[in-house]
C-alpha cells in the first residue's frame, strides 16, 4: 500500500520537476507554492499541483520577503469525480501518506 502511494507520489514529483525544469528554475527542492510565484507579482494568479495531482488555485502573496501561492479557491481533487475526498471531522484534509 505504501509503495503504491509512494509510486503515485513519485509520478507527481516527476511531473512537477519536469514543469520546473521546463521553466528553467533550478532548485533541488520542489516547493511548488513558492516556485510558481517566482516570476510573478503580488496578487497575480497562480496555480500548482501537489503530488496527488490535486490542483491549488489562488494568488501570489508576500511571506518572508518572497511570494507564495495562496489558494483561495476550493482544492480541485484529482479523484473528486470518482471518490469522495479524505477529510476529517474538524475541517481539514486528512494526511495522504501512510
Amino acid at each position, binding site marked *: 500500500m505504501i509503495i503504491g502511494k509512494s509510486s503515485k507520489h513519485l509520478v507527481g514529483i516527476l511531473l512537477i520537476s519536469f514543469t520546473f525544469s521546463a*521553466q528553467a528554475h533550478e532548485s533541488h527542492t520542489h516547493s511548488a*507554492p513558492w516556485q510558481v510565484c517566482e516570476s510573478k507579482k503580488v496578487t497575480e494568479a497562480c496555480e500548482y*499541483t501537489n503530488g496527488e495531482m490535486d490542483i491549488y488555485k489562488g494568488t501570489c502573496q508576500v*511571506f518572508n520577503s518572497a511570494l507564495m501561492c*495562496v489558494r*483561495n479557491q476550493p482544492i480541485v481533487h484529482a479523484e473528486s469525480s470518482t471518490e469522495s475526498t479524505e477529510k476529517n*471531522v474538524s475541517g481539514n484534509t486528512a*494526511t495522504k501518506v501512510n
Partner: protein
Amino acid sequence: MNKVTTFAMPILSVLIIAACGGTVVETVDDTTTSITDDDVQAVDTSKFELGTSSSITEVSCTLSNGESSTCYSITINGFPSDRTELGPFCPTTTTTEAVDAGKWFDDGVLYDLTGEFISKLDIFYGDSNWQLYDENTKEVKITDTQTACEAAARPDVSAEYNNYCVQCDISYYSDTDGEGISSTYLIPVTPVQRSSAGSVDRSSIGVAFNGVVLDAAAPTEDILSAYTIAAFDDCVGHVNPTAGYHYHGANHGEGTCPGVDFEEDGHGGAFGYALDGYAIHTMLDENGDEESDLDTCRGHTDDERGYHYHSAGAGENLFIGCFTGETAR
C-alpha cells in the same frame, strides 16, 4: 448609515509572456470585497482560553494607517492551554510509526513524518544527498540538545547540521510546565478596513484561542536546502528559539490536537483571531465543503459572522493570505 469600504485590487486581464519557458501567464481576476460597518464584528475576548501567566488588557495603539485606536494587548504564554504536552516531532528510527511521530508538509499536503518517510526523503525530493538516518543503526539524526537545535533552527544552518531532523524542546526556554515563551500581540478591538489588502510578509498571522501564535509561512526552501526537516507535531506546531511553540497550519481533531466545534449553522468554527481583529475559522464546514467565495486574503462575509477568514488546509504552510484590516504598529 453604513460606511462602505470597497477594497479592490484592480481586475486585470493582461497576458504576460514569461521570459523563461514561454509560459502564458494568467493574471489577476481579483475578488472585490465590500465590507459595511455591519460586517465588522468586535473582537470577543471571551473566546480566548489562555493558560497561566497570560492576560488581555485594553490599551491605546496606533494602527498601520497611522490612526490612533484601541487594541487588546494579548499576552500569551506560548503553550497550548488545551494540551499538556507538545510533540511528538521527529521519529526516532526508520521504523517509527505515525502515532509516535509528527508531521511534515509539502506542496499543500500534510504528511505523517514516519520513519519510513524519513528513509525515503531522497526519493521524495529526488536528491540522493538526503540521509537523515544512520545507515547502520537506523536511528534518525535528531537535534536532541539545545545547542544542536539552535544551530539547525535558523536560516543559515551550519553544514554540520545538514541532514538532521530538527526539533527543539520547549523546556530549553521555560522552567515552568505548561508554559513556553511569553509574547504579547496587539489586536484592534474593532477591525478597521484597509484601503487595499496588507501583506503578511514577516508578521505573525494571529493568535489562537488556546494561546499559541499563528506564524507566517515557514521558509521551506531554506529548511530543505540545508537538508533539514523542521518537524511539526500533529497540530502543525513546532518550537524555535525565538518564537517558542508556534503553528504553521491548522489541523484540529487529529491525534492529540483538540477539534474545533462547527457553528450552529454548520459553518466552520473559529479557532483564533488574525492580528487585524477578524476571526479565523476552519477550512471546511460540517459537510466537508470549502467556502467558494473567498477573497485573496481567504476572507468572506456572511450575515451571522460578518467578515471573517477561513484557514487554508493543514499542509499549505499558511492560514490566511493577507490582512484585510489594519494591524497595530
